[in-house]
């Protein structure tokens, strides 16, 4: 059982990294970014190139010291990967999304769907049509983290869970404690009045979209480093799952996205062995259930980051 829960937390952590970006973008820009899954896929592909290159510079681990070196190198690589998504996200926002903020929200859906299709083919152009696999997963699992505390569980999963928690903590700190974070929230709430107190909303929006892309990319890197591979179309399922997460948690709520991710992660992992046919449906059933009991989601905040 413990292992199932851990598996769920692992899964939930990756989901959180994707869904949190989506939540932030939705909360601040009011855009349901259908291309978000592709940003995540882009992260996975970029990780293949960047981490592949970086990890190639050090040998695979043989002892504790080399293991730590290896782990640090891979972590640095995934940060670098996510950093690539910053300008990509910023550029997409400035060039395509900015002109349509004032339009009916359905056009935003159509536009981001268009971006989704274009991004898919950009990745196809750069990395080819077949999946690519980074292949440093085994190396990371040789880092003996879990044996040290006496449980036998893949180091990588623990690593991802920790990163998920760290990302959550950072985001909460950023939006709740820092001035910039609260300025971003203000922008989310009322664009015009933000302008009227001296906030450059354009730049805030670009920044927020870039941050959202950053975490999507980070999530992508995590999957790519992990047992999965980067493939075209990998973003679609996660996109739909992130919808589920942000609805369960409450739109625009970071706490909600975190709790939602973990709930989806853990429940699907715990239910699957007993009711295998439900594996696909669990997140959606959970979503229906939550919404029927609590229509605004667990931490419903209607478009505000909190």
């Amino acid at each position: 059982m413990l292992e199932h829960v851990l598996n769920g937390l692992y899964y939930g952590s990756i989901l959180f990294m994707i869904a949190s970006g989506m939540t932030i973008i939705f909360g601040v820009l009011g855009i349901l970014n259908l291309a978000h899954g592709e940003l995540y896929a882009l992260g996975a592909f970029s990780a293949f190139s960047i981490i592949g290159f970086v990890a190639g510079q050090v040998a695979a681990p043989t002892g504790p010291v080399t293991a730590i070196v290896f782990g640090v190198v891979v972590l640095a690589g995934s940060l670098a990967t996510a950093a690539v998504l910053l300008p990509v996200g910023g550029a997409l926002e400035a060039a395509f999304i900015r002109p349509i903020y004032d339009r009916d929200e359905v056009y935003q859906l159509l536009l981001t769907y268009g971006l989704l299709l274009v991004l898919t083919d950009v990745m196809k152009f750069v990395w080819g049509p077949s999946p690519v696999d980074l292949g440093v997963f085994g190396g990371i699992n040789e880092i003996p983290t879990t044996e040290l505390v006496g449980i036998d569980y893949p180091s990588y999963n623990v690593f991802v869970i920790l990163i998920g928690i760290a990302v959550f903590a950072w985001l909460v700190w950023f939006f709740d404690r820092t001035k910039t974070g609260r300025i971003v929230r203000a922008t989310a709430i009322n664009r015009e009045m933000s302008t009227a107190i001296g906030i450059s909303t354009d730049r805030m929006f670009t920044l927020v979209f870039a941050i959202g892309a950053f975490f999507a990319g980070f999530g992508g890197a995590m999957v790519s480093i992990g047992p999965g591979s980067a493939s075209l179309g990998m973003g679609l399922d996660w996109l739909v799952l992130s919808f589920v997460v942000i609805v369960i948690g409450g739109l625009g709520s970071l706490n909600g996205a975190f709790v939602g991710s973990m709930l989806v992660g853990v429940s699907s992992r715990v239910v699957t062995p007993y009711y295998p046919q439900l594996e696909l449906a669990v997140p959606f059933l959970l979503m229906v259930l939550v919404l029927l009991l609590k229509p605004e989601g667990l931490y419903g905040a209607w478009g505000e980051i909190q």
Partner: protein
Amino acid sequence: MSRFLVDRDGETHLRLAEGMELTKNQAVLAAVGLVALLIVPDITRFTPLSFTAIHRGILFGLAAVGLNLLLRHTELVSFGHAAFFGVGAYAAAVLASQFDVSSGLLMLLGSVLAATAISVLIGYFVAGYLDIYFALLTLAFNQVLYAFVLQSGYFNYSDGLNVRPDGLNPPALFGLQLSSTGYELVLYYLTVVVLVVSLLVMWKLVNSPFGRALDAIGQNRTRARFVGIPVEKYVWVAFVISGIYGGLAGGLFALLQLHVSPEPTLYAFVSGEILFMAILGGFGTLVGPVIGGVVLVYLLVQAPFYIEYYNALTGLMLLAVVLFLPEGILGSIPKIGTGLSRRRRDPGLLREDVATIGSSLRRGVSRAATTVRIIVFGVN
């Protein structure tokens, strides 16, 4: 003035029935559209255009017309319309393969009934929700249904069911057991009839007090409630009507495709596509969704045969529509019309257009570059 021509605000309107009137331009467009629909089979015979792709597009367009009732009037974005489309398709398939029903029309009836039932059920749960919650809740029901069908042996899992009562031949239409080309033609004209009737019904509906009540609900729910409109009930009714359109389209799809499997009929992205068809064609219009359906389906189905980067082609085209045809394809026709006639008079404008597009592109790029520079390097 004759029985069919009436004068309103100094313009001659063509009067079809009580409360159904068309302006001159609309009448011409409608006539052209109808003729185009009728001669599609002939056109495709002499051109490389694909008949089935257009047929398929019209079907999806019909579903999009139904979805548009929610989108345009109650201002609810349904992300789960494939639920009805899929249920409609599966109803036909189940009748054919599990109950050996051989009449195509009976299958369609089954589609409508099944879609009604499922939309009554889903509608009951979602009618009270708004905005993105509505969108995502419909999506959730859609996915639950998808997962259910995918897991169910009765529906033959991911492989789906055949819509061939005897295993090999298509169902009978109007009691006729037709050859494959004959079947396609008859089915096509059946589709056209269904489409035209559905459009007329929808037209009538949205121009009735009930349609206005839906508009009112879309624009301000609280106020609608406080003028005495039972909001949830009406949304529910609209939802069911919209679902019936979806089911009908799904049933026709089953008859066309003769095989129904979960992914192309029930998956969440089919819902998305139906939604995008409505927007693409112009969701502020009655017929726009049909056009959007034909265009989007055609692109999705045919582009892979011609270019390697077919997704990008579709994507770029959608971007172009959003940025340059702000009301969708049909919705923008009036503007394009006046724009064109102005340009015919003053060709200089054309040069300006090119310049504007060029400079707006340049602006977009430089804007993107600046912002990115600021974010990455922090320099202002």
